[in-house]
């Protein structure tokens, strides 16, 4: 049996599993534009029970009307980039009521973008896990709330950051987070769309404090990153200093959203799973940043890059790196640091090393980054030792089939 419900314009389908426990199910969104010849003030809503018999039918006006004219007449897109065509990943509906119809599996849904309030009309854009944006769905008289409320049955919206946990893998996502010692961060997130707009506990995701207005946490982490890099690679630090880039502000995006924009979605999930474990050490994300800088040090230092070019180069690494390679590199760095005698105390504390020294007065690593003299700073030749550490990596790289991602997050 098939259970289905649809608004005019929208049709949600799911296979016979209970909503919000959709593991293994494939819930489909089917968009079909309003038939212009019909009376759009009378909108049918119906549900079918598992035996496919209509048990409920009512008429109501959800108060919206898709408006494709806006997007198809105003835009001046270059040929070949016609966003109005159903994107790959969204199949054209077989019995389409028009060229705009499409079907999208909720398992493929990564995030939804909503126009800001205050526009004369509003729109929603669905983004798939492949990063494909389905054409904007326009609503002239409201209706986005009703639609999102309906979708909340199937996906969990994480507001504030625009992240969405959804699709067929919510169950697994929950389990993973539980395993990492995180208590349901989305509690209270689903239900009504209004509920979705409220700030909620996102502590499981890139540090909530990263988003504080004061940026204190971000500044502290950039200082900590500088501290690590100074220990690891003084020549690179000196070079960056000489180019007025010593603050490492070009790493801001990495730290703020935990490399969310640097890797493909499935790779981000892998990376975050590693970071959530706090293995092999706390603040491992800073070593990941060091690993990327280490991988790029040749390009940065030997191309004569200045302030602008450094930032541009770092920005343009997005989607060009292998998360596994970077993780291995980061772990190698950790192992070298862990094996380094007389590592500066603030570095030890940052990485949770030297816990045998209980009773050592704790200093604030954040506010007192001590530039280290060459004698204090063991200069490590990272580049050559990376591959050697790979075989005995303690970081479990999940097989690809398990990384296809239940929870999908998109800042």
């Amino acid at each position, binding site marked *: 049996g098939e259970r289905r419900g649809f608004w005019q314009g929208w049709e949600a389908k799911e296979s016979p599993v209970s909503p919000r426990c959709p593991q293994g199910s494939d819930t489909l969104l089917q968009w079909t534009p309003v038939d212009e010849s019909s009376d759009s003030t009378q909108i049918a809503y119906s549900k079918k029970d598992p035996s496919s018999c209509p048990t409920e039918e009512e008429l109501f006006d959800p108060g919206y009307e898709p408006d494709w004219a806006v997007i198809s007449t*105003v*835009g*001046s*897109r*270059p040929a070949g*980039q016609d*966003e109005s065509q159903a994107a790959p990943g969204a199949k054209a509906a077989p019995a389409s009521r028009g060229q705009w119809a499409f079907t999208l599996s909720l398992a493929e849904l990564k995030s939804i*973008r909503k126009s*800001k309030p*205050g*526009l*004369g009309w509003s*729109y929603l*854009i669905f*983004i798939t896990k492949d990063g494909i*944006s389905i054409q*904007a769905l326009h609503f002239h008289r409201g209706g986005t709330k009703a639609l999102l409320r309906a979708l909340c049955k199937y996906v969990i919206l994480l507001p504030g950051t625009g992240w969405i946990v959804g699709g067929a893998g919510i169950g697994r996502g929950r389990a993973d987070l539980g395993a990492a010692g995180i208590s349901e961060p989305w509690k209270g997130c689903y239900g009504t769309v209004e509920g979705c707009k409220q700030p909620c506990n996102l502590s499981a995701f890139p540090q909530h404090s990263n*988003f*504080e*207005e004061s*940026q204190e946490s*971000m500044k502290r982490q950039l200082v900590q990153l500088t501290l690590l890099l100074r220990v690891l690679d003084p020549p690179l630090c000196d070079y960056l200093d000489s180019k*007025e880039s010593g*603050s490492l*502000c*070009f790493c*801001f*995006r990495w730290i*703020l*959203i935990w490399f969310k*924009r640097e890797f493909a979605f499935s790779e981000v999930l892998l990376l975050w799973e590693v970071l959530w474990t706090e293995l092999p050490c706390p603040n491992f994300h800073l070593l990941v940043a060091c690993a990327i800088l280490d991988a790029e040090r040749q390009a940065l230092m030997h191309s004569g890059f200045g*302030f*602008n070019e450094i*930032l*541009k180069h770092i*920005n343009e690494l997005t989607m060009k790196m292998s998360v596994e390679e970077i993780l291995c590199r980061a772990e190698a760095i950790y192992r070298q640091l862990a094996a380094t005698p007389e590592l500066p105390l603030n570095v030890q504390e940052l990485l949770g090393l030297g816990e045998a020294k209980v009773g050592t007065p704790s200093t604030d690593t954040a506010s007192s980054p001590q530039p280290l003299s060459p004698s204090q700073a063991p200069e490590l030749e990272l580049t050559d030792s990376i591959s050697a550490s790979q075989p005995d990596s303690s970081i479990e790289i999940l097989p690809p089939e398990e990384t296809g991602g239940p929870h999908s997050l998109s*800042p």
Partner: protein
Amino acid sequence: GGNKELSMVLIGESGVGKTNLLSRFTRNEFNHDSRTTIGVEFSTRTIMVGDALVKAQIWDTAGLERYRAITSAYYRGAVGALLVFDITKHQTYDVVERWLKELYDHAEATIIVMLVGNKTDLAQAREVPTEEAKMFAENNGMLFVETSALDSTNVEQAFETILRGTGLPGQDRVGSKQKSPGDNTVSLSAENADGTSASQAMKEKRACCLNL
């Protein structure tokens, strides 16, 4: 002529369309789904100014305070700035003065600033009257133009006016804040070749919408 590099910066509140103005200018692309800019991003485009090639390096900055890194760094060496607001959100216009102050605190004194009212394609939702913004620009020594990154209206003109007006010998530095306010503010919309100014067109559109 030789190859010249000029740097300019896009500033303004989050969501006003800075990133799409830049992508429209540098790649002729518009993305309905563009993501919040984090920190600062960077694009270049080379244009002909007279017989000289000018390579424009354009910094696109985060509008959200918590997504901005070390701000002053972005402004170094910028010869021009587009201070962007959204004509459909009065709040983004209300804070223009604050952005202007930030710019003048960090940028060079000779920087040319153009106030840009973006999203003219959303004429029916307009909250900031053209004349009001134009007057404000004049009183504060800024150039002024209204644009639509979505339908490309005036995007080229906005960038090119800045790039033409800066750093080239013998050119008047129109819009420079060193000029006394109001004496030579240029409104691009009044200079359209077809004689119909964008602002007039907007008014006609609005009138038309009001009649509905």
